[in-house]
């Protein structure tokens, strides 16, 4: 339990640190949202008026930084993210914008990431188990290569092949705009169809790492005496592989998985940009481009919480799966 308490302490401290960073980073950025607003209004509105508008949306650049900081902390903790000051989304509540994108990112990135992790671990397990087989002799090289491919390279080639050279699959958006969202099969099919290429991009680039680490962990684990012991006991191969080897080899991967959520977000930004997928990554890209502080801060917070949450979940899982951590101070 102490272990968990300490982790919780770490969680909160990091959250605070991230919040603080979130606050100060954008505030030290030059410029102000007024510029992007000017662009959005195509110069039809005078600057003085733009300032007035921003102020009416709660943007007060000249207020005392520390009082702003306290306000900010309070707002963030109470989930009051304010309204966007971004170019074409001025005045839209940030929570609404995030609410619109979050499901897409969660669905696309979340599912693919977990899928990549599970699939990768599975492939890694089998490769290590069949050590020396044909599969194992080519797998590492293949996955070293795929894990080094940049998201946009894979995305680009998929687009080139599937949407430009052939128009087999849609290369942008989250669903066909002509379909009214709902639980209709057409809509769901469209969503799946649109998710296919970006998901494949994420999968291709992220699965390799998991295959490799799982394989390596498995190899280390397979050399352990308890594996031999499992075999000596006459357990079935599957049981030894899953219950004895994979179960143990998997544990160190869990924390790695949690840490990787941060990198996954990288993927999300690039992939969503390449595939015009209206998720959080895209929102961040826009927010940065239009100096949309409230949006940036909320997204940052969200990302940090995502990573921290993933770490916490993986910690819990580890504690659940590994009795040794329960004893650890």
């Amino acid at each position: 339990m102490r272990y968990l308490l300490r982790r919780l302490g770490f969680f909160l401290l990091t959250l605070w640190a991230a919040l603080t960073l979130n606050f100060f980073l954008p505030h030290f950025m030059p410029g102000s949202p007024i510029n992007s607003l000017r662009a959005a209004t195509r110069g039809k509105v005078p600057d003085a008026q733009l300032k007035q508008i921003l102020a009416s949306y709660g943007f007060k650049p000249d207020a005392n930084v520390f009082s702003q900081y306290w306000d900010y902390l309070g707002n963030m903790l109470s989930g009051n993210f304010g309204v966007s000051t971004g170019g074409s989304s001025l005045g839209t509540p940030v929570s609404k914008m995030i609410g619109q994108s979050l499901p897409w990112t969660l669905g696309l990135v979340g599912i693919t990431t977990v899928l990549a992790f599970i699939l990768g671990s599975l492939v890694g397990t089998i490769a290590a188990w069949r050590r020396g087989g044909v599969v194992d002799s080519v797998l590492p090289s293949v996955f070293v290569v795929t894990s080094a491919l940049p998201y946009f390279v894979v995305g680009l080639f998929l687009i080139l092949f599937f949407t430009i050279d052939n128009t087999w699959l849609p290369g942008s958006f989250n669903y066909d705009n002509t379909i009214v969202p709902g639980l209709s099969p057409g809509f769901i099919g469209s969503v799946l169809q649109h998710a296919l290429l970006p998901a494949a991009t994420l999968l291709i680039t992220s699965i390799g790492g998991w295959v490799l680490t799982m394989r390596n962990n498995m190899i280390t684990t397979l050399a352990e005496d308890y594996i031999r012991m499992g075999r000596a006991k006459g357990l079935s191969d599957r049981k030894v592989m899953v219950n004895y080897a994979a179960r143990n080899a998997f544990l160190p991967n869990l924390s790695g998985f949690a840490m990787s959520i941060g990198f996954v977000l990288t993927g999300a930004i690039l992939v969503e940009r390449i595939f015009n997928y209206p998720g959080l990554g895209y929102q961040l890209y826009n927010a940065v481009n239009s100096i949309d502080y409230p949006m940036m801060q909320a997204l940052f917070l969200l990302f940090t919480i995502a990573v921290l949450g993933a770490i916490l979940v993986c910690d819990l899982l580890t504690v659940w799966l590994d009795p040794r951590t329960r004893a650890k101070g």
Partner: protein
Amino acid sequence: MLETTTDPNALLEVRNLWVEYNTPTGSVPAVAGVDLTLAKGEFLGVVGESGCGKSTMLFGIAQLLNPPASVTAGEVWFKGQNLVALSAKSLNHLRWRDFSVVMQSAMNALNPVHTIGHQFKDAIKAHAKWSETEIRVRSAEVLELVGIDPVHLKSYPHQLSGGMRQRAMIAMALLFTPDLIVMDEPTSALDVVAQRSLMAQIKELQKQLGFAVIFVTHDMSLVSHFSDRLMVMYAGQVVELGTTRAVFDAPAHPYSKGLLDAFPSIRGEKKRLTGIPGAPPNLGRPPTGCRFHPRCPVAMDRCIVDEPELYQVGAVQARCLLHEPAAQKVEIES
């Protein structure tokens, strides 16, 4: 070569067993033609310096080799079946019911993420269709047999002390009361007192339950009081084999003699001991002729060329040209 026909009394017969490690620099025969017969209920000690192939031989017998090691020649007859040729399925059938294994370090040999009870259950379920109650009863029974409170069935390995873990391992090996238990240095991680107590316990159980034991160690004195027969290995080969007493009283091979001379005694007379000069050979390139000749104090010229076999020398067998029946007998100075 010992030309054995299947001995009806023998529980285990190993014939010309070769185990090789396939390494990038070539193949390393870590077990080179081991022959061995084990009777029912017998306690066989296997000793030798580190790296001489004891563990490899054990795993070769139990068919537990991991790549890159594999049995490249030989047969292992156990209860009328050749384990080497057996399919994985029928091998699994024999495992644990008929022969079980206790490994060196109990910390590593117990799966850290499952309770002791769970691991017992795994073993039972793989071989028998017992009810949960039967499983629990039997597990508790064997734990009590080795002197551990059955509450520890619910414990994870890391919650037990080293000695307890070792005993839990032995308890697990006894689940089906097999005919043969193979032990690879089961006490080396323990301290002297705990070691002694565990040895005594093993011996006690063996007497009580009548299983045969192959006990591997590098500490000759450890098995001196417990084993019926002793097998001395050097560089992948059996160099001496005989009853424990006979080997201790009159070691026939210079290597066994050297090993014995390397032990200071706590009671006997205090004299200067010498040990064996040099280091064990690299098994990838073993010396020609007698593998022990570079370190042998009584090596002869022909030892460099001629490869000795196991010769009967009184009560023991020894792999030394000094004991070659045809050759002239030369006494070893002691």
